[in-house]
């Protein structure tokens, strides 16, 4: 395996988590600054669902290749990212936006 593909495999969960986090934070900041709170739960919900599906897919892909350490690691990190993503998304859904 090349170094680049190993790096991508290991970091894919972290990348999805980071994009999800940036979307949540960015859209919320914008929606609240422009007085458009309705956008928040929708964005949070859709972004979290998409990220969770992507992370589950990465975890499954890595788990199938768990005999290889990089596969195991990518699965484990995707699960860690999934926990954090769902936790953050849930918080975004239950807290009133822009209060």
């Amino acid at each position, binding site marked *: 395996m090349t170094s680049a593909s190993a790096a991508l495999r290991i*970091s894919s969960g*972290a990348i999805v*988590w980071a994009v999800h986090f940036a979307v949540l934070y960015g859209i919320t900041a914008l929606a*609240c600054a422009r007085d458009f709170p309705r956008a928040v739960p929708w964005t949070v919900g859709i972004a979290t669902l998409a990220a969770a599906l992507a992370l589950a897919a990465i975890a499954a892909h890595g788990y199938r290749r768990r005999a290889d350490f990089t596969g195991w690691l990518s699965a484990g990190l995707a699960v860690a990212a999934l926990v*954090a993503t769902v936790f953050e998304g849930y*918080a975004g859904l239950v807290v009133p936006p822009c209060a």
Partner: protein
Amino acid sequence: MGNASNPLPSPLPRPAGELEELKRLWNPPRGFRFITVINNNYIGVAYVGAAFLFFVLAGILALLMRAQLAVPGNDLVGPALYNQLFTMHGTMMMFLFAVPAVEAMGILLLPNMLGARDLPFPRLSAYAFWAYFVGGLVFFSSLFFGLAPDGGWFLYPPLTSEAYSPAINQDFWLLGIGFIEISAIAGAIEIIVGVLRTRPPGMTLARMPVFAWAMLVFALMIVFAFPAVIAATLLLELERAFGWPFFAAGQGGDPLLWQHLFWFFGHPEVYIIFLPAAGMVSMIVPAMAQTPLAGQRLVILALIAIGFLSFGLWVHHMFATGIPRVSLSFFEAASMAVAIPSGIQVFAWIATFAKGKVQLKTPALFVLGMLFIFVLGGLTGVMVAVVPFDWQVHDTYFVVAHLHYVLIGGMVFPLFAAFYYWMPYTSRNALSERVGSWVFGLMFVGFNVAFFPMHATGLLGMPRRVHTYLPGLGWDVLNLVSTVGAFMLAAGVALFIVDVARKFRMSAEGNAGNVWGAGTLEWLPNGNYSSRSIPIVESAYPLWDQPKLAEQVEAGAYYLPRSVTGTRDTLMTSAVDAKPQWVLRLPMPGWAPLVAAWFTAAFFLLLTFKLVWVAAVCGVVAIAALLHWGWGLDPPPGARVDIGGGLELPIYMSGPQSQAWWAMVVLMLVSAALYGCLLFSYMYLWIVSPQVWPATPPAAAPALVVAGLLLASSGAVAWADRGVRRGGDCRALWLALPCLAGALAANLWAHWDVSPKETAYGAIVHAILLIDGFFAVTAAVLALFALARRMAGRLDPVRRVTFDNARLFWHYTVAQTLAGLALVQLFPRLVS
């Protein structure tokens, strides 16, 4: 290994003279030239020593503060000096002690732990050390002239803006710390390439020591986090020096932008110093318990998970700033999520102690102390991650207690464990066990006596950063107890210094050896050249699982038992599987890194005093020294060499397998993080102040000219690449240079009517242009360097690393400038 069917790579006995030659090559320079030493053993020890010196100095500042607070209404220290004391204490502990100390431990330990002769860029380590040491000392001396920064270690504007801090105190922080960050980044590049490319054959990622994993994650975190504070310091210095209003609310700026950038660095910073310390603990615990680390793979997973999740926590330092609650909740959730991987590590250490037979020596005592203190700090961390609770204790002594429990528990106690544990590796004698238990006792009891009462002091309402308080508020006794504890802690540190003075005698070859019976490679018999031969590794604890390994390695039975190139050399292996690829010739000691470091420090510090011309001269000397240094690199290719076991490897490599390519890729990641912070600042300021954005978008024609010229310059570089492949001719670079210069000029022309001083919009646009200019000039210098080497006959189709560096950086610069141009040009069209 070593049986008849699979013989060792190098036949024994080794010919006479091989070892002597290795020793001669790796000996440090003698006499006054000793200061040009670059070997990681020496630089590592000097680096650790310097960091410890700053720890002691910053600790003395803390004692002064505690003496002042011992009784109410004390007048030992006035408010102005007190402000400087707490600012310098925090700044020095974070920037001059914690990060350099763990980086130094990496430089000291990693090559031996990885069976390498040295890290791949030994001169870069020396440069990083000298820039940091000289800069740090000058920075500290600012206290004696009343010029030390006094705006808190986080230097929040508007308090630190020109209007409220007109003297140069804050500039000392901005410029002094700014370039120490450059030193940290240099060390990070060294560590990433070292960990990934200089491991011994067989040391796959799964078998890599946990400390090496921790240092890899640490270095990658520096790559992404430090550029944020560099961007922040750049913007604040531009505002202070030239009046560009990034943080001035009246002109569309926002002081909270500083807080975002600062904490985007500042929170990961906590983990940047904790992870290497956790990595050290994960090495010490198995040796103390004489059993492999429980759940080693999970611990590695936890290290990486903490590494990325810690980038989602920064706003928890800003819970009280009025950010929408839903935004706070994301950071609250992330703050709690990061406790899970942190907990995994703690449980792994406890489980390892439980399954092994523990030798309760001083390193183990410090680890146990760390577990107690850090877990308490983690628990109060989860408390302050809860927004309503944080609002109650924000800016009180509760937070002071929390952060010291986390940092001293998470970093200082592990570091002391590491000092005791690795002392026999670098010194003739181990430290005294008897004194060690006293050191531990004083530090552990002293720490808790000092900091535990602060939880109560904070809950009783005592704010942070006050130089005194009135009697009768319920804070008197608690403060006195804290002061007694602080001096007890200091007594422990003083006793440690006495023991080090008694016992520490640096020696690589005559070290005390593997006194703990540890299983990892740094405990192989070694010298200045690291281990005699480079072993084949079959497990995560090779000294435990390959019983004859130490003996065979010392006899020279493995790879590279001699210098195969007539100079210092080491084995380069593949990043994932550690398969041998080529032999890297390492540089010898020289003055260039020192001169470059000293004059880099002088450049930044003289700028603080607004001595622009003297600073410029120093800057030119530093660049000249860097170019001189670079000129001696990229040695001529030679014939393949036999490293043992029938393996014949090249001694020259260009392209993606070369160490230079890897370093350049990491540098591009640093650059992208820096530029990303500027683009974030642009978007952030627009969200906050859309009214200062132009109603009519900027003219399109000049931007198209800029884009065209940029692409043309990249085309010329690609053409030069073709020329180099066909015969070494890179003259097409002459064509690229005017295209890039033209693009710069056109870009400036396109925004000529936007003033950087009037609004935050103008300021951020010009900041982006400024960085574009800096990158373009750097790319041009690299291109001219390649052209000069071609003229000197040092560049041809094979020997082409300097050209590749210039090419990579050039294309990156073009891509980055285009990204900035797209944002600055297209975004106003989108929103107007």
